[in-house]
C-alpha cells in the first residue's frame, strides 16, 4: 500500500491525503490525519445523531471517493499577511515589529550617549528633531530620564523578548518539531495583535503632558506611584503600565501556545531528547514567561490602583512630596521590588535562553560537528530556568531588606554560574575538532560566546553583596547587563537572522555586508560597553543626567566621550544591517531548501515553507538533530528524517528525506 512518493494511495492509485473523502467498510468520512509509518489514518465521520466522530482505520481498507482538493492555499491578502493564523507570518510580523522597535530603542540610546558624552552642550539638529525634549538647544533632565526609561523598556520587553520568543519562537517551533502550525493559531494571531496596541500606547506616552515615564525600566515606587514626584510620573507612567499590561497578555498567549505546541504537536519520532536545543531554549523560556509574567501583571495593576484608585500597596504613610503630605498609608515600596524582580530576573533568562539554544544549533551546523554534551546542554537550560526563580533579590542587596537574606541570594546567584559555565565549556568543546565555516551566522555565534563570558564574569562581582554595595546602580551594572543580556541576546538574534533568513524568505542575505556588519558590531560593542566598567569603578551612577555635578566624576569626561563616539559608530554600523535585510528581501540570491546542509526538520521543506509547512505528509524523525560528520555516512550531515538503518523493504522510505 505504500506509495513511492507523497505518502499513501488506495488500490486505484488515488492519494490518501488530508481532506480526501474516503470509504472504509461501513464508514465514510473525510481524512483528518495520515500516519504512513503505521499504515493507518484518522477519518472524521458524520453520523446523523452523533455528529462528528474521529475514527482510526487501516489504510489498506480504504477506498478514495474523492481526492483531496489540490488547490494551493489561497487567502485574501488581509487574512494572509495582516490577520494571519499562520505561525510563519506571525513570526515574521513579530520579527519586523521588533526590528522597528530596535531602531526606536537605538535612537534613544544615541540620545543618552549624546547627553553623557557632552553634558551641557547645545545641539541645534537634535533640538530640531525632538523639540519637546530640548530647551534652548540643551536636553532637558526630564526628557533624558524619559529617554533612559523608554530605551530600557523598549529594548528588554519590545525588542529582545518579542523577537526571540515571538519572532524566532513562532517561526521555528512548528517547523523544527514537524508540526503544521501552532496548537492555537487564533490565540497566536491575538498575541501579535495585542503587541501592536501595546506599542501604540507606549509610544503615545512621549506626546502626553509631562512626557513619557521617567522612573527607569524598573519603575520603582513611590517615584512611579506619585504623579507629583516627577514630570514623567504623570500620564506617561500610567500609559507605561497599561502598555506593559497589554504586552504581558500578548506574551502569555504566546507562551501558552509554545508550551502546548512543543508538548503536544511533535511529529512522530521527535522525542523530547531529540529536540534541537533551539526548541529547548524556547520551551524553558515559555515556561519562565508563563510563571513569571503574571506576577508583573499583578504588580502593574496594583501600581495602577495606587496611582488612580487611591490604594496604598506601595506607598507608606507620611510621604511628603511637592510640599504636602499624601494621604496614602500602609504600603511598602520594597513589595514592588520583590514583585518586579520575581519577573525581572527570569526575564533576563527569557532573553538569553533562546539565544543560547540558537547559537548551539548554529555552531553545530556551521561547525559541521555535533553539539557537545547535548544532555548537559539540556540539563543546564533547565537548571538555569529553575534557578532563575530563586535569585531575584540579588537586585536588592542595598534596598533595605534584611542583610541576612542577601546571604541566601548570593548563594543561589553564584550557583547559577555553574550551569552557565557548563554551557560555555560545551560550546568550546563543540568547536574543538570542528570544521568551521565562517558564515556571518557562525561569526555571530562565536561572538555570542565571547560576550556571554565577558558579561557573565562581571556578574560574579555583583553576586557578592559586599562588592555589590559599591557597584550597585553604577555603570558597572550597566556594562554587565549590556554584555551578558543585551549584546549577547542581540548576537543570538543576528546569528539567527543570518541563519534562518533563507528559510523565512527564500533568499540569502549578503554575506560580505554581513561580515562587515559583524566586525563593526563586535568591535563597537566592546568599545562601547567595556569602558563602562571603569566608569562604574569610579562610582559613576546610572541614570544621571550629567556628570558635572560631582567632583569625583570630573575625571570621567574623556572616558564618556570615548564611549559615546564608540556608541555612535556601533549605531551607524546597524544601518548596514538594515540595508542588507531590506535589500535581500527582494534581491538576495535565491536559496534552495537546505542551503546550510543542516539536519533539522525546517530544512526538509521548501524555502519559504508553504502553508501547512510540509507539502505532503509530516516528516518522521529517526535520530537526534546533530548527526554532522557521522562516520560512514555519504554526506557530512544526516537529516533527522533519515532512518538509523536502511529500510528493510525494497522501495525505500516512507516520507521526507531524499537520503538513503
Amino acid at each position: 500500500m505504500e506509495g513511492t512518493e507523497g505518502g499513501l494511495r488506495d488500490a486505484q492509485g488515488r492519494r490518501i491525503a488530508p481532506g480526501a473523502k474516503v470509504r472504509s467498510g461501513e464508514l465514510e468520512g473525510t481524512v483528518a490525519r495520515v500516519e504512513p509509518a503505521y499504515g493507518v489514518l484518522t477519518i472524521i465521520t458524520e453520523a446523523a445523531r452523533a455528529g462528528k466522530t474521529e475514527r482510526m482505520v487501516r489504510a489498506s481498507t480504504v477506498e478514495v471517493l474523492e481526492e483531496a482538493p489540490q488547490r494551493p492555499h489561497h487567502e485574501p491578502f488581509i487574512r494572509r499577511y495582516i490577520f494571519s493564523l499562520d505561525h510563519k507570518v506571525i513570526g515574521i510580523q513579530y520579527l519586523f515589529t521588533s526590528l522597528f522597535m530596535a531602531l526606536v530603542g537605538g535612537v534613544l540610546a544615541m540620545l543618552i550617549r549624546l547627553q553623557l558624552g557632552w553634558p551641557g552642550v547645545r545641539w541645534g539638529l537634535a533640538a530640531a528633531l525632538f523639540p519637546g525634549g530640548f530647551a534652548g538647544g540643551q536636553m532637558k533632565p526630564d526628557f533624558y530620564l524619559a529617554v533612559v526609561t523608554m530605551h530600557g523598556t523598549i529594548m528588554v520587553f519590545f525588542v529582545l523578548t518579542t523577537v526571540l520568543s515571538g519572532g524566532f519562537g513562532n517561526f521555528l517551533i512548528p517547523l523544527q518539531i514537524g508540526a503544521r502550525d501552532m496548537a492555537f493559531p487564533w490565540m497566536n494571531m491575538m498575541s501579535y495583535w495585542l503587541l501592536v496596541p501595546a506599542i501604540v500606547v507606549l509610544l503615545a506616552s512621549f506626546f502626553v503632558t509631562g512626557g513619557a515615564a521617567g522612573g527607569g525600566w524598573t519603575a520603582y515606587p513611590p517615584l512611579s506611584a506619585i504623579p507629583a514626584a516627577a514630570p514623567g510620573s504623570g500620564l506617561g507612567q500610567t500609559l507605561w503600565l497599561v502598555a506593559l499590561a497589554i504586552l504581558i497578555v500578548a506574551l502569555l498567549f504566546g507562551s501558552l501556545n509554545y508550551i502546548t505546541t512543543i508538548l503536544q504537536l511533535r511529529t512522530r519520532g521527535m522525542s523530547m531528547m531529540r529536540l534541537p536545543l533551539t526548541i529547548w531554549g524556547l520551551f524553558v523560556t515559555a515556561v519562565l514567561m508563563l510563571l513569571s509574567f503574571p506576577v508583573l501583571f499583578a504588580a502593574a495593576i496594583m501600581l495602577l490602583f495606587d496611582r488612580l484608585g487611591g490604594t496604598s500597596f506601595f506607598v507608606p504613610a507620611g510621604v511628603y512630596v511637592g510640599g504636602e503630605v499624601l494621604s496614602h498609608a500602609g504600603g511598602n515600596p520594597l513589595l514592588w521590588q520583590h514583585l518586579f524582580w520575581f519577573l525581572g530576573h527570569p526575564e533576563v533568562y527569557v532573553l538569553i535562553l533562546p539565544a543560547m539554544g540558537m547559537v548551539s544549533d548554529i555552531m553545530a551546523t556551521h561547525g559541521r560537528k555535533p553539539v557537545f554534551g547535548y544532555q548537559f546542554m539540556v540539563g543546564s537550560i533547565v537548571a538555569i530556568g529553575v534557578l532563575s526563580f530563586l535569585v531575584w533579590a540579588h537586585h536588592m542587596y542595598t534596598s533595605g531588606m534584611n542583610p541576612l537574606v542577601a546571604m541566601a541570594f548570593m548563594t543561589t546567584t553564584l550557583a547559577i554560574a555553574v550551569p552557565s559555565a557548563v554551557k560555555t565549556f560545551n560550546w568550546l568543546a563543540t568547536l574543538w575538532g570542528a570544521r568551521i565555516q565562517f558564515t556571518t551566522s557562525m561569526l555571530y555565534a562565536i561572538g555570542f560566546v565571547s560576550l556571554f563570558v565577558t558579561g557573565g564574569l562581571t556578574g560574579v562581582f555583583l553576586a557578592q553583596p559586599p562588592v555589590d554595595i559599591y557597584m550597585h546602580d553604577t555603570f558597572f551594572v550597566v556594562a554587565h547587563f549590556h554584555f551578558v543580556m543585551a549584546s549577547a541576546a542581540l548576537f543570538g538574534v543576528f546569528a539567527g537572522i543570518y541563519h534562518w533568513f533563507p528559510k523565512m524568505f527564500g533568499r540569502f542575505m549578503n554575506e560580505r555586508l554581513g561580515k562587515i556588519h559583524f566586525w563593526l558590531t563586535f568591535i563597537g560593542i566592546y568599545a562601547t560597553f567595556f569602558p563602562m566598567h571603569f566608569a562604574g569603578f569610579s562610582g559613576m551612577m546610572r541614570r544621571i543626567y550629567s556628570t558635572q555635578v560631582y567632583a569625583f566624576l570630573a575625571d570621567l569626561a574623556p572616558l564618556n566621550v570615548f564611549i559615546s563616539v564608540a556608541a555612535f559608530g556601533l549605531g551607524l554600523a546597524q544601518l548596514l544591517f538594515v540595508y542588507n535585510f531590506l535589500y535581500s528581501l527582494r534581491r538576495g540570491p535565491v536559496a534552495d531548501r537546505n542551503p546550510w546542509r543542516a539536519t533539522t526538520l525546517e530544512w526538509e521543506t521548501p524555502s519559504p515553507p508553504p502553508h501547512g509547512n510540509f507539502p505532503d505528509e509530516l516528516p518522521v524523525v529517526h535520530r537526534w538533530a546533530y548527526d554532522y560528520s557521522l562516520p560512514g555516512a555519504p554526506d557530512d550531515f544526516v537529516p533527522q528524517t533519515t532512518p538509523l538503518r536502511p529500510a528493510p523493504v525494497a522501495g525505500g522510505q516512507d516520507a521526507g528525506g531524499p537520503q538513503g
Partner: protein
Amino acid sequence: MANAPQHSDARGTGLAVALLIVGLVVVGGVGATLYATGRWWLPPVASAHGVAIDRLFYSTLVITGVVFIGVHVLLALFVWRFAARGAGRAVYFHDHRRLELTYTIIPAIALAIMVAMSGIVWARVRLGAPPADALVVDVRGEQFAWLARYPGPDGRFGRVDPRRIDARTNPMGLDPEDPAARDDVVSRTLHLVVGRPVRVQLRSTGVLHSFFVPEFRVKQDTVPGMTIEIWFTPTREGQFEIACAELCGIGHYAMRGQVVVQSPEAFAAWLAQQRPALAPAP
C-alpha cells in the same frame, strides 16, 4: 537555486577572527584595565570595612580575569585551529562524561569558595552589631538634598512629623511638642569623626534615594516608611561627596551632599557651635 558558498579553506578567516579575539578582547581588555587603574578606578578607601571589600574586589578581579583570559584564548585557538581546511571531516565527538563533570565540579568548587569568602566579609560588614560608643546620626534624603541630624545634649532624637516640614524654618519636620526634639541639631553637611564608628540611620521623605559615599564603600537605599541603619568607621580625614545612587526624579543627578570627616576635637568644636534647629534665631 543557489547554495551558500562552500568554504573549502577558511584558514585565513579563522586566523583573522582568532586575532580579533586575542587582540581586541584579551590584549585590549587587559590593556584597557591596566590603563584605567591609574585614572578611572575605585577612589582610595576611607573606611575600616572598605579595606575588606576592596580585598574581595581584587580577589574577584584576579579570579575572573584568569577565566576571562583563559576562555578567550581557548576560543581563539579553536577558531584558528579548526577553521575548515582541506577535504577532511569534523570529528564526530559529542560526549565525554568525565570531561563534562570536571568542568561542572571545578567551577562549583570555585564558586563555593567565593560564597564562603564574601559571606565572611558580609557578616562583618552588615551583620555585626555596632560598637556601643558609636556616634549616631539621622540622615534623611529628600528631593533633592540630604539632611543630617544629631541628637543634641540629651542623646535622644526627637519626634519628626512630615506635616511639620517647612523648607525654610523646619526642613527636618521636628515636632516642637516633643522635648527631645528641642535640642536636636540639623545640618546640611554630615560631620563624622575619624576613627569613631558611626551609626547612620537612613530615612526618606517621599521617594527612594540611595546614600552613596564612594570612598566609604557605603551604599544604602533610603526608603520612605522605613528607618534603615548602617554603621561604619571613617578612617581618613577630609571632605567627601554624598551621591544619590537611586533614581529619585528630575534632580537625581544633582542630589549632592557633603561629608566632613574630622578629628574628635574639631568635631566637638563644630557641634558646640551649632544651635538647635528649633531654637529661635538670635
